[in-house]
């Protein structure tokens, strides 16, 4: 059937030599130009030997739906003008929450093809100008029309996935608490995080608030007891509760990509693209297995093949924890743990910062924030920082840290990517 000359690989190497991320949070009085400018200026500072912005030949910009969220579409030329790129091309990519990993992948391919040598990739999103109900609707648009018609929201799709997982493996909602507690434990060390707080910090803050108001001071035995308390952790789409769901966020992120042979002009510590994969799948009704994302499995296979690696080679990873349940499934789909074991690995602390397979050192989408169009390149930035030993208090302390990865999921699993970076 298939007629192909050669199988997916890069025709020449591509390195990441710089990156930036805006502080994530809700900033109604600013807009995406502010967020991207913040990320872009940080990127310029991050390039060890500097870069002349005039040398950037093209940009790829991920944005899911500022059209809906802010009433302004067509962000390519706006960002091009912002950073002085006019009249060079800026191409917007859209893959729901994976939008900016698609920008990254297009940028990588544009350099690998020989078309360009120096390319900027990134993403932006502003979600704070809409109400929670409206954001629920806006994100829901990235589900399938059948899911939307039935009344599924994003949290609902992952809530339903969770009940299927619980029934299949004989577990319950308690397994999800371990994901939330683990990710929040990393967040205080990330100055860009929307919630730089552990779950215990949330408990203390709640107690302090009651004390200040002269109300009875609540007591919880531990973090799990706090998460069981529906007065502080109410259901959103049961069994997804508030602390299972990533927040609504604003932000921008970007990375500077250059051809391998130029990397040495920018830095002595370039990080190379070892493998990259992207896949599609369809909604719940068309899934063969409700507890797996076909697009992730496909993307990971491509990336591992391109890199000549297996899951055992990956030393740490960002994974798309839009909802706590999703993280557990990704651990299995990416081959880090066998099917049905992702929850146990998390419960046993294997994915903690000091564990054998640190996951979401950034705090993840849950604690760091999830400005959807900016998320993919923000995740890859975290891997870049870790591989360069620049992650501060959340630095993975493995000897010879060389290989890290980033998994990004768009919509309800419709678009998924997996990216492997390597320090040689």
């Amino acid at each position, binding site marked *: 059937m298939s007629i192909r000359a050669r199988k997916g690989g890069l025709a020449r190497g591509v390195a990441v030599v710089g990156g930036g991320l805006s502080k994530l949070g809700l900033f109604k009085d600013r807009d995406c130009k502010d967020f991207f400018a913040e990320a872009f200026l940080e990127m310029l500072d991050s390039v060890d030997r500097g870069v002349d912005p005039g040398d950037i030949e093209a940009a790829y910009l991920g944005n899911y739906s500022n059209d809906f969220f802010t009433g302004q579409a067509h962000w390519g030329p706006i960002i091009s003008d912002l950073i002085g790129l006019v009249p060079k091309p800026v191409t917007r990519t859209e893959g729901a929450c994976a939008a900016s990993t698609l920008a990254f992948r297009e940028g990588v391919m544009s350099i690998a093809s020989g078309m360009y040598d120096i390319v900027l990739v990134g993403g932006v999103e502003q979600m704070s100008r809409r109400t929670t109900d409206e954001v629920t609707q806006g994100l829901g648009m990235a589900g399938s029309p059948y899911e939307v018609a039935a009344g599924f929201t994003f949290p609902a799709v992952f809530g339903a996935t969770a*009940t299927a997982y619980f029934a299949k493996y004989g577990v319950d909602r308690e397994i999800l608490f371990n994901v939330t507690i683990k990710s929040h434990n990393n967040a205080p060390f990330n100055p860009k995080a929307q919630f730089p707080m552990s779950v215990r910090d949330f408990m203390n803050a709640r107690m302090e608030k009651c004390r200040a108001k002269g109300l009875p001071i609540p007591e919880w035995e531990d973090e799990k007891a706090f998460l069981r308390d529906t007065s502080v952790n109410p259901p959103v*789409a049961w069994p997804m509760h508030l602390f299972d769901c990533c927040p609504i966020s604003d932000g921008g992120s970007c990375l500077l990509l250059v051809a391998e042979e130029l990397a040495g002009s920018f830095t002595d510590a370039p990080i190379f693209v070892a493998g990259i994969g992207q896949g599609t799948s369809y909604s719940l009704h068309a899934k063969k297995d409700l507890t797996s994302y076909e697009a992730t499995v496909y993307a990971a296979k491509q990336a591992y093949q391109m890199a000549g690696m297996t899951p055992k080679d990956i030393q740490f990873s960002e994974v798309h924890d839009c909802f706590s349940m999703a993280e557990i499934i990704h651990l299995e789909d990416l081959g880090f743990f066998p099917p049905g074991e992702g929850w146990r690995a998390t419960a046993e602390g294997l994915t903690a910062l000091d564990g054998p397979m640190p996951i979401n050192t950034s705090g993840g989408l849950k604690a760091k924030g999830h400005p959807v169009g900016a998320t993919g390149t923000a995740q890859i930035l975290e891997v870049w920082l870790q591989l360069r030993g620049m992650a501060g208090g959340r630095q993975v302390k493995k000897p010879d840290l060389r290989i890290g990865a980033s998994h990004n999921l768009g919509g309800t699993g419709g678009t998924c990517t997996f990216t492997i970076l390597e320090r040689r």
Partner: protein
Amino acid sequence: MEIRPFNDTSYKQFLGEGLLMASQCKKCGTLSFPPRQICANCYGSESEWVELAGSGRLAAYTSVYVAPPDMVAQGYNREHPYVVGVVDLDEGVRAVARIVGVDAKNPETIEIGTSMRVHFPEICEGVERHCLFFAPAED
């Protein structure tokens, strides 16, 4: 039966008439629900309509407390959640649907594997949406 195009418009029209209709590829026999213009198995483009029996088992579900605006307009909110789910139909295809006849406020009482039956309400309240409903089958 008249031949309607194998698309979402026909699928919704049939739902409005109380019919749960799938498409079946004439070339390879693959059954698709909702219906498809192009067979995902053999790329065939000739199909026929097949009526589904409307029974199956609950494969996944969730109770939605934070609802989108169109569901809020129908009266659903944190105090009045609604249930949606995935039903594995007897014919081997899956449906995503609203699940009624269950206790949305106590979702832990709902069981995966419960026998379900399609349910066509008299009216689809308020808004222009073509709802597919399932409810626990009565023994």
